[in-house]
């Protein structure tokens, strides 16, 4: 049966728009069920704020099942909060106790400008995918799906990286605001598969260079892996770096051949 937490002290980042300097605002949550999710706790807070004729706290969320990658909160300095491999929306209040102070902030990274309060703009991620995070196969001409057998171990490894939900916790957790884990997860997914071979080096070069345009550089802190709700392994970054080095050579060779 559910228990109730009492008297939570919330410190929440409020910022009216991208140019506002922003500040912390204090709120007390007198009581909340430990069965409630973290975001449901914020829903309750917001209902209360509307009741007091105030502006509710803006935050991004949608599926509340840990799969869409929309939710994005820094909770007590940790991206997605204290529970390992759990997105903010899957975090439940049973992880907290009565009287706790909880500091809630948006993702902080120069590539993710704040839109309002806790909501940020992550479209730089889309730019990385648009630059090469795909396999160029137009609709219509695909051969039978079982024509190319893929060893189970390869399909599984590709799936491990393909699970990235594009939330940006890796960037928010990184002291440099680097997007290497996100970018490498997509590169690993596609570069491991037979279907991804044709564009392997072109893809890697384009994605890495687009990433560098928007994001900071990786200095191997490993904070990204610890923050990732999908447990994407930092090994994918090594794979990306290797393919990137090769791409410099291979892509030039291909160009000179044309």
């Amino acid at each position: 049966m559910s228990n109730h937490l009492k008297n939570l002290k919330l410190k929440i980042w409020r910022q009216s728009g991208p140019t506002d300097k922003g500040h912390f605002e204090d709120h007390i949550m007198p009581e909340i069920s430990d069965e409630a999710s973290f975001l449901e706790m914020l829903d309750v807070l917001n209902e209360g704020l509307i009741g007091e004729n105030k502006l509710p706290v803006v935050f991004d969320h949608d599926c509340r099942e840990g799969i869409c990658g929309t939710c994005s909160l820094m909770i007590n300095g940790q991206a997605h909060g204290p529970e390992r491999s759990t997105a903010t929306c899957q975090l439940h209040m049973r992880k907290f106790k009565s009287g706790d102070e909880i500091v809630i902030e948006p993702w902080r990274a120069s590539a993710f400008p704040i839109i309002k309060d806790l909501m940020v703009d992550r479209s730089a991620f889309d730019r990385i995918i648009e630059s090469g995070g795909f396999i160029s196969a137009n609709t219509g001409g695909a051969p039978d799906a079982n024509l190319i057998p893929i060893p189970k171990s390869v399909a599984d490894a590709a799936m491990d990286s393909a699970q990235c939900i594009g939330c940006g916790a890796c960037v928010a957790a990184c002291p440099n605001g680097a997007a290497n884990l996100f970018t490498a997860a997509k590169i690993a997914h596609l570069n491991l598969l037979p279907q991804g071979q044709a564009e392997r080096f072109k893809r890697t070069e384009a994605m890495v260079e687009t990433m560098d345009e928007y994001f900071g550089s990786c200095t191997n802190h490993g904070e990204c892996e610890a923050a990732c709700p999908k447990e994407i392994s930092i090994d994918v970054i090594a794979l990306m770096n290797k393919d990137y080095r090769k791409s410099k050579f291979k892509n030039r060779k291909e160009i000179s051949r044309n």
Partner: protein
Amino acid sequence: MTITLNSKIPAGSINDKWNTYKEDAKLVAPGNKRKFKVIVVGSGLAGASAAATMAELGYQVDVFTFHDSPRRAHSIAAQGGINAAKNYQGDGDSVHRLFYDTIKGGDFRSREANVHRLAEVSVNIIDQMVSQGVPFAREYGGMLDNRSFGGAQVSRTFYARGQTGQQLLLGAYQQLARQIGLGNVRMFNRTELVDVVTIEDRCAGIVTRDLVNGEVVSHSAHAVVMATGGYGNVFYLSTNAMACNVTAAWRAHRNGATFANPCYTQIHPTCIPQSDPTQSKLTLMSESLRNDGRVWVPQNPDETRPAAQVPETERDYILERLYPSYGNLAPRDISSRAAKRSVDSGRGVGPLKNGVYLDFSDAINRLGKDVVEERYGNLFEMYERIAGENPYDMPMRIYPASHYTMGGLWVDYELMTNIPGLYAAGEANFSDHGANRLGASALMQGLADGYFVLPYTIGNYLAPMLNKPIPGTDHPAFKAAELAAQARYQGYVDIKGTRSPDYFHREVGRIIWDYCGMERTQQGLEKALSELPALYEEFQKDLRVTGDTESMNQTLEKAGRVDDFFQLGMLMCRDALEREESCGGHFRAEYQTDEGEATRDDEKFAHVAAWEWTGDPTKSIRHQEELNFEAIHLATRSYK
């Protein structure tokens, strides 16, 4: 506009219709395609696949989504899998069998020709997705693996762990991203459709609201595709993502598009029961779990022992008992009602006695924990995170919840609504699932519509428009729609009442769930139809939206969506009231057998009900499209 429901089903035998259609369809020459602008609203499986494919063909495509990125569409949340008649398992599957299963699963309330086409193109979808790099599950030999879903006796479901929707959507999103990168698609994120504009009986474009700065803008096009998902959130608590809503389809409806079978909603049997009043949504546990999990309740309503200590002889395996040949894989509507009856009879389990058990102990004994973990590991983790119990040791507790909506915008064989130039695809249309959808068929339908149907049918409409001017956004009709939209949103802010949009959403949801949910009666529906207008009046007088219309305002977004849910809710109840039969997800208590099974009335109701907007949602006009069954004999649906 006078309403004509011409389904435009091509002549010929069911096996030839789609080929005949494609051979006869008018074509737009490759070099001319860029002269046409197509708007796609929605970037889920249906929208992303349609937009990417049309851009590849050469059309100029503009895509709109209220999400911050096309990759967030609700398709991402689908877990279990996608059907296709590949017959890779050699277990007797075929296009005809998938066609038959889908018609039967839908309780003989869908259009044969559309469903057959769906089964035909299902095989191409798997090929296309594999070529996009979707990492479907494989067997050790490297071939694609399959599992079974409810309502089928073959294994035709392809899956990627418990994240099939995610992987398919990312495949389609990446294909779309490529077209965005190439400059063939203009992508509008965080932009919501707020109106549809028709000029001279043809869809001329849309009006949108930028959610970041509140700007209201018009966009004109040669054709518009609504791929905006379903309306399951009308129930407030559902398995849909928080932002799923009916606004796009509803605005099309208010501008003349008929809305078909709104009362056909699907209540999914395996969701985690509600645990707390603050709960904002319900979480689905994939139907694939029913491959190995057994559904039971204790025979004794006063049972207090933990599940494992209840002896076999004192358990009631409800589905295995009632439906021996399909057992735990009986279709969703049937399984949901069986669970509801158990809970209603006081045999529910869990602290609130609001669930039934889904038990894996036999599977764990038979297959070993490793195999069970390999199959369902991430679902078990998800369950534990939410319910705080470990399903390897304790059976899951599950209960039905609103999940999918079969009703939607009426479309013809070409997926065009009754407004020329306005199309609907994916869950937003009503077309393929009749009164009940089989598991793993929505992903199939979304991708079929987007990849393999629309790109053909839209050319047939566009070809004759070559080099003819279309109205621009300076046309007075666009200006009027913009002003109306601005007034509508300003209106919500100006009410300055006392209650939040969420309060009203919860209240509408409760009424619809109680009277238009798993079981409906004339009396209940009439009650709902008197309560809803009263509550709607209160909404219009007592709503409170703080903040303004010119900046990011999530309360304001919600207000608009709840407004449309009210109107839809009334139409759903009307539709349910007028359909005096039980079929699929629409179960009228007055029409059932002695054993509690749905009784259809084919004499009177073998038709689609398509509703015309009149300005008052309780006074919409009902039109009918008769359903003719030529390839399949109407039969009583039996899963015994």
